């Protein structure tokens, strides 16, 4: 039928007109699709993407002070993992070294960040995560430098396992041993193969005595943890790693736990707080822990539990056996997020981010008595564009806020001094 109609119009001029008309129809269809794809108020024209791999386009930056006061900064930006050095407290940086390029496969989730540590001889260890397959299984890669971060080895996988490993958390001990913990999904994957379905992951860890070149056999600290939150880590006075993480307790309760990793293995799992957050959701919001010189655990975390909701702080003087009553960080009606702690001796610093609808603001408070009393929160910095989590880092006895912002640059601000 259509052919007949067309035949009847098969004069050259009519044919040309019709063909043009049909092409116009296709074009119109396409134009409608394009219009549809931009229907949210000319969204595409409003996009202001930062496309480079430099610090100015980074989504997360992690600092580490080397013994000679050099600052190492590792960051991820548009699929690239980079490291640079600063000898003037972050005012200027060396030409960045690109460690790896993974494009859209790099893990840039809101709780993901590269990890970097160094010994006093300039041996640098770096870890990050990328997604290795179409099922979004993740792989932790590590790279090393023996020249203070000027050059790095090719990244290699931390473990040989086909399932998923994510959210590395790295500490370096005074004896230069490296401790790494991460979220591991091999137990969940094995259960899945056996027909059982379970959400969540496990907390795994390993030590290295050769700067991260090789690691001892990995162990599980807790077989049931949230799979999408960072792990917090700190060393106690005996240089034992202490980790804090979002565990999955009986009944699917995703509350915070702490655990000491001794030379004998992982100590018992200690519940930081009974928040009663029963959820299958991914919070993307892990805790922070810092152990003071007295061995006191200081922990800060986020929860939406039935018993409390918001960002909270508690401490423990008995290695996590019991914790103080949680105290709220920030006001209840304010959007508080990303708490971070640093303890030096009996002094403790705490930072967090608040958003007031237009500006992200970083606050600091300080305790001189191991967390018993705290100063009034002080506003330290703000930005009106994208910003990373506020972090705390020390150069000897001097404490700095490390905060990456898109609009106002990378900020390293001195906020305290150990007395």
């Amino acid at each position, binding site marked *: 039928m*259509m*052919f007949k109609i*067309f*035949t009847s119009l*098969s004069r050259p001029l009519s*044919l040309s007109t019709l*063909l043009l008309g*049909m*092409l116009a*129809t*296709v074009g119109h*269809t*396409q134009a409608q*699709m394009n219009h*549809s*794809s*931009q*229907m*949210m*108020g000319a*969204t*595409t024209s*409003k*996009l202001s*993407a930062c496309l480079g791999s430099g610090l100015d386009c980074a*989504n997360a930056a992690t600092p580490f002070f080397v013994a000679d006061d050099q600052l190492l900064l590792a960051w991820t930006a548009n699929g690239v993992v980079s490291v640079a050095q600063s000898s003037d407290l972050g005012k200027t940086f060396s030409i960045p070294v690109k460690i790896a390029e993974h*494009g*859209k496969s790099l*893990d*840039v*989730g*809101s709780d993901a960040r590269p990890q970097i540590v160094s010994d006093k001889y300039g041996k640098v260890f770096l870890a990050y995560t990328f*997604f290795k397959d*179409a099922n*979004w299984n993740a792989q932790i890669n590590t790279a090393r430098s023996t020249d203070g971060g000027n050059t790095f080895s090719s990244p290699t996988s931390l473990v040989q396992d086909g399932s998923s490993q994510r959210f590395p958390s790295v500490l370096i001990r005074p004896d230069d041993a490296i401790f790494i913990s991460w979220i591991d999904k091999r137990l969940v994957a094995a259960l899945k193969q056996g027909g059982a*379905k379970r*959400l969540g992951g496990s907390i795994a860890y390993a030590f290295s005595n050769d700067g991260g070149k090789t690691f001892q056999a990995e162990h599980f600290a807790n077989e049931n943890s949230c*799979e*999408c939150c960072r792990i917090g880590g700190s060393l106690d006075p005996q240089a034992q790693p202490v980790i804090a993480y979002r565990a999955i307790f009986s009944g699917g309760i995703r509350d915070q736990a702490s655990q000491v990793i001794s030379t004998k293995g992982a100590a018992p799992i200690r519940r930081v707080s009974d928040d009663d957050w029963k*959820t*299958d*959701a*991914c*919070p*993307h*919001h892990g805790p922070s822990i810092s152990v003071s010189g007295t061995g006191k655990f200081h922990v800060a975390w*986020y929860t*939406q539990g039935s018993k409390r909701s918001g960002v909270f702080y508690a401490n423990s003087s008995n290695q996590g056996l019991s914790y103080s009553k949680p105290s709220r960080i920030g006001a209840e009606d304010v*959007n508080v*997020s990303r708490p971070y702690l640093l303890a030096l001796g009996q002094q403790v610093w705490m930072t967090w*981010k608040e*958003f007031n*609808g237009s500006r*992200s603001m970083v606050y600091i408070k300080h305790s001189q008595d191991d967390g018993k009393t705290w100063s009034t929160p002080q506003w330290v910095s703000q930005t009106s*564009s*994208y*910003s990373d989590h506020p972090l705390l880092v020390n150069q000897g006895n001097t404490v700095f806020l490390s905060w990456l912002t898109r609009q106002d640059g990378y900020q390293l601000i001195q906020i305290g001094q150990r007395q």
Partner: protein
Amino acid sequence: MKKTVLAFMLIIGMLNLAFAEKPTLKPYQNGDWSNLIKTTKGSPLAIHFWGVTCPSCIKELPHWGSYLKSHPNAKIVFIQVDDVSTESMQIMLTKANLQNANNYYVVAPFDERLRYEIDPKWHGETPTTILIDKNGKATRKTGLTNFQELQAWMIKGS
């Protein structure tokens, strides 16, 4: 000439088919929320936020596909929040039979600034579903969805 014309028509037809079947993924960023929920026009609307890298989201997504197949008139918007390739989003959506749903993806960072206009108290947990009732009142549900409850809410409208 007739063969040429027929061939041309076939090509045109295939092009139209190709365009028609191409799944649309629309960008979403700061400032878009008010326009998005304006589309409710008195009908209940569910806006489901999910992420490609969020295991519970991926586990649940096919159930959304089944629900929408059973209830094709339900007003549901899907917004993907992870910074991943659009191809990978489309793969997940196709697996869940949601390739032709009303799909968006976040093009700005999924941070506190983007979430504030949606719900100032939302910290970004996924999956999260915002239910806008027929009166425009929003309720945030975090975690996996009970689809029987969702359907009851859709019928009631509030």
